[in-house]
């Protein structure tokens, strides 16, 4: 393999590993805020202890996940320079401030207040602690805002002019709120809610199965199932809007997703098949006649552009085609599981969650990390779907890569992959261990002494 391909793989490995953790923490932090507020609201009643247990357990998971996100995020900030210097040299005037605002306004909010949120018990007042928790939640969401703004700008660039091959900013509002940004941000935040929700539900189900459930487990499970059952239809709707937006701005990506090789009227919807890029056709295709035209243009006879319209400027078909089907398939599965679980849960409003049907609990355990798979599949659709461009239609990925020796890039890639596999194993293992040995929170301590200099 050449340096270009190896560098792309390395970037994909780093960003895939990184995105796993923010995808959990963005929404998990709002779940924690909710647990915390419920605890405050039920103070003095038996329910308060349950909310505190839920808060306590998931704060530990949050701390672990956040640490994984921080360290893998540091790796990201170096990747641009070590492997893709051409990107910042050409697009730095626009990418720079967006990344800068992410670091300044968001990253610091998270990292600084995290210490107080995690370990502030007994050191600051309840009110300050709540503010710190809100700051962390707000910071993680703000991080997503800026990063997705830049990512969307790379997909649907706006508000720029090009002088001597370099991008210059003309209209910052148009840059930040570029055409695909609202859809992408909404899609990502909802994805985070689903990822965190299914993780909470899966781990809680495991605790019920293993007999380590507490009152907090039941509260967390109920919250998570309610959340995912409400969010999943929104997400499917948002995904559809995002797809229509993509059709408007990146028809080549849609052609690859749908496996439309030649421009045609009344294009069929391919459910499954084997994309054959050499022969420009989909082998063994299972198709619904006129389906794609109907879904994408809301007109059974509408013309859809095929890949033949974009010679040398369309993405590789197979990964985009398959990524999309994995994402959509998981989305539908989430819908089914979330609604069945919600139905079962609400029919048993009493406290006998221990008697939940075991097949349902095992299904929830199996879905614990389904958000990760769907998120990655979706990212591969949109990012591989942007190829061969880095800034869509304007700047090619191949023009940004640093000319390192292939062996060196292969060496670092192997090292990163090894570490990532080990850490993922450890992460999942530790969460499982924590679920099976859930401890109760320490009794609330006396009112904190004011901080004082010694």
């Amino acid at each position, binding site marked *: 393999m050449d340096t270009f391909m190896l560098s792309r793989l390395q970037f994909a490995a780093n960003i895939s590993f990184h995105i796993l953790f923010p995808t959990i923490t963005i929404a998990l932090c709002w779940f924690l805020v909710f647990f915390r507020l419920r605890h405050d609201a039920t103070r003095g009643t038996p329910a308060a202890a349950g909310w505190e247990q839920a808060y306590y357990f998931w704060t530990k998971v949050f701390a672990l996940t956040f640490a994984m996100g921080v360290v893998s995020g540091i790796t990201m900030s170096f990747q641009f*320079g070590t492997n893709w210097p051409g990107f910042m040299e050409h697009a730095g005037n626009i990418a720079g401030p967006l990344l800068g605002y992410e670091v*300044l306004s968001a990253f610091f909010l998270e990292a600084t207040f995290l210490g107080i949120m995690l370990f502030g018990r007994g050191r600051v007042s309840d009110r300050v602690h709540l503010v710190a928790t809100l700051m962390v939640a707000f910071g993680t969401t703000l991080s997503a805002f800026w990063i997705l703004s830049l990512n969307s700008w790379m997909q649907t660039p706006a508000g720029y002019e090009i002088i001597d091959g370099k991008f210059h900013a003309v209209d910052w509002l148009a840059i930040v709120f570029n055409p695909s940004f609202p859809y992408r941000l909404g899609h990502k935040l909802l994805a985070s809610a689903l990822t965190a929700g299914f993780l909470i539900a899966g781990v809680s189900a495991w605790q019920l199965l293993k007999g380590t459930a507490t009152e907090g487990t039941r509260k967390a499970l109920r919250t998570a199932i309610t959340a995912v059952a409400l969010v999943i239809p929104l997400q499917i709707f948002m995904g559809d809007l995002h797809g229509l937006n993509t059709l408007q701005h990146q028809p080549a990506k849609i052609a690859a997703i749908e496996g439309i090789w030649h421009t045609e009227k009344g294009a069929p919807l391919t459910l499954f098949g084997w994309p054959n890029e050499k022969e420009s056709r989909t082998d063994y295709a299972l198709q619904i006649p006129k389906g794609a035209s109907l879904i994408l243009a809301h007109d059974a006879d509408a013309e859809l552009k095929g890949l033949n319209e974009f010679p040398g400027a369309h993405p590789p078909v197979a990964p985009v085609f398959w990524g999309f089907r994995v994402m959509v398939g998981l989305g539908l599965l989430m819908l089914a599981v979330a609604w069945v679980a919600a139905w079962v849960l609400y029919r048993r409003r009493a406290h006998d969650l221990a008697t939940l049907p075991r097949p349902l609990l095992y299904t929830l355990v199996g879905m614990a990390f389904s958000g990760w798979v769907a998120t990655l599949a979706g990212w591969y659709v949109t990012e591989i779907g942007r190829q061969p461009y880095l800034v869509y239609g304007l700047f090619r990925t191949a023009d940004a890569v640093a000319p390192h020796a292939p062996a060196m890039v292969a060496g*670092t890639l192997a090292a990163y992959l090894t570490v990532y596999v080990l850490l993922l194993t450890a992460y999942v293992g530790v969460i499982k261990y924590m679920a099976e040995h859930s401890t109760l929170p320490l009794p609330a301590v006396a009112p904190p002494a004011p901080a004082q200099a010694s």
Partner: protein
Amino acid sequence: METLTWATALPLIFMAIMGLALLAYVILDGYDLGVGMLLPFATDAEKDVMVSSIGPFWDANETWLVLGIGVLLICFPMAHGMVLSALYLPVAVMLLGLVLRGVAFDFRVKARDAHKATWNRVFAAGSLVTTLSQGWMLGAYITGFQRDLWGMLFATGIALTLPAAYAMLGVGWLIMKTDGELQRKAARWGQGALWPMGFALMGISLATPLVSRTVFDKWFVLPELFALLPIPLACVAAFFAIRHVLAAPRVVAAGYGWIVFAATVLIFVLAFFGLAYSIYPYIVIDRLTVWEAASATESLAVIGVGVAITLPAIILYTIFMYRVFWGKARELTYGL
């Protein structure tokens, strides 16, 4: 005389911000990396106290590195590519070290007890590897990425120096944040790190002008030499202050243990300004000046507004956080 315009001033302002962010990083993450490297010398109970002493801080400490590298990336894209491409391997090694120590911090208390010793070792090894590669990167940067024997020797020299210097910061931190036997132990570790740090700093100071003609010409001319003399003299004074406090338990007991940390910080600050003076106006020595490397003025202005609003806030709540966790380290507990 040239008039001062935004196009000339903004790159300088951001150079200063980047430098200060990296200085803040070196001091702040320096002490927690130092504590990490000292971990193997402590008993199991002491290890928990040591990790507790840095627990609430390390996330934020490492974020200063992201800010420093972020400013390089955002404001000096040309230099960012040149510097990080040249440092490809050490950067990768440092990142792996940072990743391992960062996660080990959390895993060591959450994994099953049988694995705790392994995560402790990962934590210490990650801290050491991170420090070694940062030293190497600094050395390579000062020589302008010379690939000859002297350049390599110089970078190796700094790579071996930095662990002693970070360990001293860690010692200073532990003297402030712990008491009893661990505090006494920390002072002993400090005595062990003292002379290696002193000799290495002296060696670097003498070698820098020798490997770089540009640096030599900036220091060894009159009258600048006399104006600069306070820098090395203050370093020597700080060094002997550390030596005195470490050897005198009574001074520590009387509440002056913070002198070790403060004097080590002083050495870092002075070395930083010495280095800044040596390199200015270059961002990559002898190759790229601050202005050649800078982004378009309109982009710098946009990010400048954000910096002017957020940086003071960041500094204020960083101080607030240090006040909240002021005093001797206690066991860390999660909860409401």
